[in-house]
């Protein structure tokens, strides 16, 4: 009898997953959601705010905070319904979370928790994109853009990848949102940067970051939160979550090493901004692969992620005329593409599907990448033009730009000694 019971308890949760709430899984997902939440108004806010010139630091931080606030609202209003409601091309039926109670389950966890978890992804996506627009986009334009973008760009793409849509799901392996979140956000940032045009003194004045201390702290909080992002995407506290956790950590570490190693070779300097950026690049790279890569894969994915990030912002970027101010495209978009490809290439033995075919998986990866680039680029542009029109133009006037938005738009200073 005892034996029997124990066998039962050890059964994979899969079978009855729909029926029962697991307090262990729920505990983990409560925390994972909090972790991802922290990434936006703290992690990204400091990372981006520290990279910005002191006269625009608060504005940059405000965009992350605002994106989180507006994103959260829009998500519960309609975003979740579009992304995770029923339907093929678009989800419906869960506006204002209609029909969901505290008893509703999503797998082994309460659906309300799943709503909250996924909402943090929507918010950080649009906050990532803000990095391309800083120091010149109007705050009001950006806030409206953020709301529209989640509805029109983020939610549909999520629906196709994870929400049950079939027609536009190509079978891409994207465990935690390499394509859905990072590539998508990178493309969006780049497109808006193109529309806005460059900052007046871009390429002329020396741009000093407000504080590398904040940049590192922001990156550390992102790294911390990313455990929720990646290992939380398993939506359970199990071996896959553990594996995702470990490879996330390893790839981030290698991202630091990859970026700083190159920097050291080329400039004989090991910057903190570089180390922090490398960590983010490593994390972006491992995101889609975090559910399937093993430790060797993570080492390679992270190292190349960091090195690629460095090469992109220090060389490749200068071949383009676009002022992607904080490199959202280069670090989240380009490295995100690398991550998606790498996901197909580096699969741990223990995670390898029996009938795996590299060729067809690569096709799936590229299809999803392609769809995301095209859809995100077009609809982001439309949405941004709408937001601009509603706010009388999307770019601040020259005087505001040269005095900085902290003083003009927010009436505040980052630090008063």
């Amino acid at each position, binding site marked *: 009898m005892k034996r029997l019971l124990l066998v039962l308890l050890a059964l994979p949760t899969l079978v009855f997953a729909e029926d029962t709430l697991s307090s262990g899984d729920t505990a983990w997902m409560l925390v994972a959601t909090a972790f991802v939440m922290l990434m936006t108004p703290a992690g990204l806010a400091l990372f981006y705010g520290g990279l910005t010139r002191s006269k625009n630091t608060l504005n940059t931080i405000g965009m992350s905070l605002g994106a989180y606030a507006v994103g959260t609202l829009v998500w519960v209003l309609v975003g979740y319904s579009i992304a995770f409601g029923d339907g093929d091309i678009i989800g419906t039926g869960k506006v204002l979370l209609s029909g969901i109670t505290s008893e509703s389950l999503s797998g082994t966890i309460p659906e309300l928790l799943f709503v909250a978890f996924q909402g943090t992804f929507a918010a950080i996506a649009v906050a990532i994109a803000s990095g391309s627009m800083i120091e010149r986009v109007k705050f009001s334009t950006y806030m409206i853009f953020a709301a529209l973008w989640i509805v029109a760009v983020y939610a549909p793409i999520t629906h196709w990848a994870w929400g049950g849509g079939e027609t536009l799901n190509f079978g891409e392996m994207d465990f935690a949102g390499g394509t859905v979140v990072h590539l998508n956000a990178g493309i969006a940032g780049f497109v808006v940067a193109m529309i806005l045009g460059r900052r007046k003194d871009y390429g002329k004045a020396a741009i000093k970051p407000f504080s590398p201390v904040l940049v590192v702290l922001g990156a550390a909080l992102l790294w911390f939160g990313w455990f929720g992002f990646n290992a939380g995407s398993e939506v359970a506290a199990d071996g896959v979550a553990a594996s995702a956790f470990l490879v996330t950590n390893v790839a981030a570490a290698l991202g630091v090493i990859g970026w700083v190693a190159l920097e050291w070779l080329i400039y004989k300097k090991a910057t903190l901004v570089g180390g922090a950026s490398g960590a983010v690049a490593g994390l972006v790279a491992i995101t889609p692969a975090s559910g399937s890569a093993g430790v060797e894969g993570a080492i390679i994915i992270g190292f190349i992620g960091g090195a690629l990030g460095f090469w992109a912002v220090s*060389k490749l970027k200068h071949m383009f005329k676009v002022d992607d101010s904080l490199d959202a495209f280069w670090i989240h978009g380009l490295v995100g593409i690398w991550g998606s490809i790498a996901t197909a290439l580096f699969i741990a033995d223990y995670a390898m599907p029996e009938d795996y075919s590299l060729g067809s998986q690569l096709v799936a990866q590229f299809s999803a990448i392609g769809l995301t680039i095209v859809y995100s680029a077009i609809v982001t542009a439309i949405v941004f033009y709408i937001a601009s029109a509603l706010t009388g133009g999307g770019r601040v006037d020259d005087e505001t730009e040269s005095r900085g938005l902290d003083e003009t738009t927010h009436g505040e200073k980052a630090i008063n000694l």
Partner: protein
Amino acid sequence: MKKVEAVIKPFKLEDVKDALAEIGITGMTVSEVKGYGRQKGHSELYRGAEYVVDFLPKIKMEMVVGADMLEQVVNTIVEAARTGKIGDGKIFVSDIEKIIRIRTGETDIEAV
């Protein structure tokens, strides 16, 4: 009375202050400034872009002294602040017409 303004390297501040204290100069006003001169700045990195910082951190010391002390003060500063390397800085001397000590209202040489 004369005003002596010396622009020096930041890490020499303590030495210069101590040297001046020894010859009896105990009043001075110091500020952080940036200098531009023959000494070339260092380069800083910003996310893979290198840029030259051509303004270097310097310390400006200002002190008003009696004309009789002038030479001694200048020599003391030169000695204490010199490293022999480019960027050691300069001393400017000008004339002060009047000094007032706010606390007491004393003026001129008593107020130094």
